[in-house]
């Protein structure tokens, strides 16, 4: 089925899942305001939000199975890549709401609107994943970001949460300025905001050498680099991840990143592909810096949320390897990776949330000897950490995610084998901090007087079970998922033409 996006009714149909989510979100906001704040009401709205997300997931799957596509051009992409990314985003939002319903009371949060904000953020992300025009993409980023700024500061009793929110807001606004200025310059150089038209303009007028275009691309790289927390634009991430309520941290670490990367891939591959000579080296260094700095600093962390924050920076680096390798394979690897990473991150944060209890702090010492009191919690946490490490079988699908990215990097026509080597070498460092948690859980005795962790709530437990089972099952039988992501990959221009126009390749 192909939609003609110039006809309003068909455009509406192509936006069906997004509209469903937004309309449902607004209804839920009214419901949330209907009754005074209370824990029961918070739960009720949260369950409504989960139902709405499940409905939206069904709509996206319907669109994907029907193989819906859109007419070329236009401001909204209707393609498989969008549906796959939407799915990952919605699964992440579902996990966030599920964790938040049970974690909110511990933080003393009773606003039912917190769940609605997650829905709005998810709607913004879906626009981000679908945007084919820089203005639409900008709109998506703003819808997403404003909601997430508020979510970060949800815990009003905690000064750290307020600090995180303010810091994220100020720096985020600053980064948005970079992005917008970059968009303006790109528009000035190419005369377009529609990304395929930009790509065409770069190709036809050889804008690789155009300074205005290059500065525009650079500024956009800074703006997006901030959103995905690439080094050196990562400074906000550890503080914000640490201060935010734990479910929101998971949301930021996995889902915000997925959405931002989806836009990153679309802009870079559809608009700037022929300017590879201009940005190839920049993303190469960005990837290397992010992998090296993120991994080394993560080793020194004593708080598990900060450690996972740095680990999410590291995964940004791995995905930047995908961006740099400029191939269709990299975009399919991205959607696979995003799903694997989302599952592992939500699992890990579910454990963090349930061990953290009512405290603001989440020191790694809490995990000493966890195996002796809560064996299954320790085993599940190990699965998530090994998945983040990319270890086969025990880390399940995490290994194949890494394999996919490595395959894209090694097969890349631009010669990014060196990046693959740096990726694996830095991931040895990551074994140091992921295994540290495994080690304290299994190999240390439970300290005397350690608090017995509170019972894990039903929703949190289902998040843990579902993520762990999916990680392990997809780790043994990934071929179906590979097939789906490969089918819904990204169209990429033919290599040779693109690369001959730019600077020389990395490896001769």
């Amino acid at each position, binding site marked *: 089925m192909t939609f003609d996006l110039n006809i309003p009714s068909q455009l509406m149909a192509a936006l069906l899942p997004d509209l469903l989510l937004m309309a449902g979100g607004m209804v839920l906001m009214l419901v949330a305001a209907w009754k005074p704040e209370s824990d029961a009401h918070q739960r009720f709205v949260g369950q409504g939000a989960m139902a709405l997300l499940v409905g939206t997931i069904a709509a996206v799957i319907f669109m994907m199975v029907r193989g819906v596509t859109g007419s070329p051009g236009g401001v909204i992409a209707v393609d498989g890549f969008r549906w796959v990314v939407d799915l990952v985003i919605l699964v992440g939002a579902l996990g966030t709401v599920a964790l938040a319903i049970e974690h909110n009371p511990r933080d003393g949060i009773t606003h039912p609107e917190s769940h609605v904000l997650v829905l709005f953020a998810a709607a913004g992300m879906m626009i981000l994943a679908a945007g084919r025009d820089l203005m639409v993409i900008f709109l998506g980023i703003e819808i997403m970001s404003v909601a997430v700024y508020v979510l970060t500061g949800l815990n009003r009793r905690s000064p750290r949460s307020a600090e995180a929110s303010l810091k994220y807001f100020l720096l985020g606004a600053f980064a948005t300025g970079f992005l917008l200025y970059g968009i303006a310059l790109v528009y000035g150089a190419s005369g377009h905001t529609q990304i395929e038209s930009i790509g065409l303009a770069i190709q036809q007028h050889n804008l690789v050498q155009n300074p205005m275009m290059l500065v525009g691309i650079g500024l956009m790289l800074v703006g997006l680099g901030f959103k995905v927390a690439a080094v050196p634009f990562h400074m906000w991430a550890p503080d914000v991840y640490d201060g935010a309520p734990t479910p929101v941290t998971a949301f930021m670490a996995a889902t915000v990143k997925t959405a931002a990367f989806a836009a990153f891939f679309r802009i870079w591959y559809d608009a700037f592909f022929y300017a590879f000579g201009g940005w190839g080296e920049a993303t190469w260094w960005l990837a290397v810096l992010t992998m090296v700095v993120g991994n080394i600093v993560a080793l020194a962390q004593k708080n598990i949320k900060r450690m996972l924050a740095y680990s999410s920076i590291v995964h940004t680096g791995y995905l930047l390897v995908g961006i740099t390798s400029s191939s269709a394979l990299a975009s399919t690897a991205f959607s696979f990776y995003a799903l694997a990473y989302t599952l592992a991150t939500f699992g890990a944060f579910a454990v963090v949330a349930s061990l953290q209890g009512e405290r603001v702090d989440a020191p790694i010492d809490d995990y000493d000897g966890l195996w002796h009191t809560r064996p299954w919690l320790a085993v599940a946490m190990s699965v998530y950490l*090994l998945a983040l490490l990319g*270890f*086969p*079988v*025990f880390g399940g699908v995490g*290994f*194949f995610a890494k*394999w996919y990215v*490595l*395959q894209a990097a*090694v*097969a890349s026509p631009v010669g990014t*084998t060196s990046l*693959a*080597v740096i990726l*694996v*070498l830095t*991931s*040895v460092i990551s*074994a*140091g901090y992921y*295994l540290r948690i495994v*080690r304290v859980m*299994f*190999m*240390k005795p439970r300290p005397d007087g350690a608090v017995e962790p509170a019972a894990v709530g039903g929703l949190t437990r289902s998040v843990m079970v579902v993520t762990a089972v999916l990680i392990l099952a997809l780790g043994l039988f*990934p*071929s179906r998922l*590979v*097939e789906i992501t*490969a089918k819904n990959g990204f169209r990429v221009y033919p290599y040779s033409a693109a690369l001959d126009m730019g600077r020389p390749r990395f*490896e*001769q």
Partner: protein
Amino acid sequence: MTQFLDGIAYNSWILPALLALPLVGALLVLGQGSSAKADAGAAMRSARSLALWIFVLEALLSLGLWWSVDVASPDWQARVDAAWIPQWGVRFTVGLDGISLMLVLLTTLLMPLAVLGSWTSVREKTASYYALLLVLMTGMLGVFMALDLALFYVMWEVMLIPMYLIIGVWGGQRRLYASLKFFLYTMVGSLLMLVAIIALGIMAGKGQGPDFSYDAILQLTRTSAVPGAFWLFVAFALAFAVKVPMWPFHTWLPDAHVEAPTAGSVILAAIMLKMGTFGFVRFAVPLFPDIAMHPTVRTVMLVLAVIGIVYGALVALVQPDFKKLVAYSSVSHLGFVMLGIFAMTVESMQGALVVTISHGISTGALFLLIGMIYERRHTRQLEDFGGIAKVMPIFSVCLTVVALSSIGVPGTNGFVGEFLVLIGSFPTQPYYALVAATSVIFAAAYLLWAVQRIIYNPLVKPENAALKGMDLNWREIGLLTPLLIAIVWLGVYPKPVLQKTEAAATRMVRSVESARTSPTLLSTRAASAAQQGR
């Protein structure tokens, strides 16, 4: 026998069954351990005996391979091939030749003995311990069977986590340090190998999606100059050299061996180290014959091997801890294997394989004996012992026989392998063989001296005198007997092992010899650079 095995289509299901049985067993053992929570002791005993039965069943199942595998055939035996991830050209392909046959049998037959050896020493979290041993079994067998490089890599990594936990949870004083060191060392090597495997797979696919099957990659490296072949070889060689371990990558080994519980040490020494040498024989050398046999590379490998032989022996000489002494002796023995592989004659290659097997038997037995005396005496320091022969005669006899076989006294299994390696490498590499031969003397020195200090010196310490009446029990005698029989049998009549491995070793040496096309390393690299630039 062969007819019977054919009748039940043994070859078509045995390898997957051998891989699956321990995994199923691990789940059963875990279930057994947690179901009977009311009585922890009973749960432990039932988990323990269930695990033993699974290991015994596995060993019995695998015995048929001795007859069913046709070692003379150039094809893979008992090959099973199934799709796994078709989009990436990753298949589940397993199969055997004469070399891997011996290693698979060594694994399946040694594991029940290792389990029996740690029968009473593991008292906490017993079910988890045996479940991990079972998972480890699958990983080890998978490495020897895999005929798809992606599958091989997965299996190679699968072994790491169980071993890491076995050392780290049930190990000795410095277990945290030792387990992490073991893990990180292995991982550095193996992740670079992962990149090399992916690169080879993509090239073998010839533009139509990757192909990771061993045969396709062998075909690729034999028929065309692979770009960056030198670096690919380095990646493989590093992963395997860490595992062997070759000097100077051996420093994880003494820590891991000493801190691991008895079964862990036995498995590490007898089987896991062999994966390194097996990796050289199966992958690093045959895939890159012109790099591996290039004079410079070959000299480097031979020098490292010989340094390992002599260094391991000299360091073993001064160890106060018996377990550490045996650990360093492994460095020395494995150096012989590497010398045999890189000397690259049929005799030396076969010798390397025999050392591989007999080191597994002798060193496995030594670690078992150390475990037995440690359980009674709670020390491994050589100076704490003395005069044990008077109070524990059976133990002393066993220790003496095993020590003699580890030294390589004629009539024991140790002699055959080292002798073949030396004979085989002397014609092509006389100087290395000469230096290596000296270590036979050192081996006699460190082991006989250790044996003397343990069982013969005067019985002065009251703790040792108190061991009277605590000689080996029937379980321990029972588990040592097969090892002692193997030691003597292989020493006197090694023909079955030689016969099984001869065809595979000959084929490999011939194919490596014939594949040596480009004479210099630099021209290989220049050619590959030229191809990459094209």
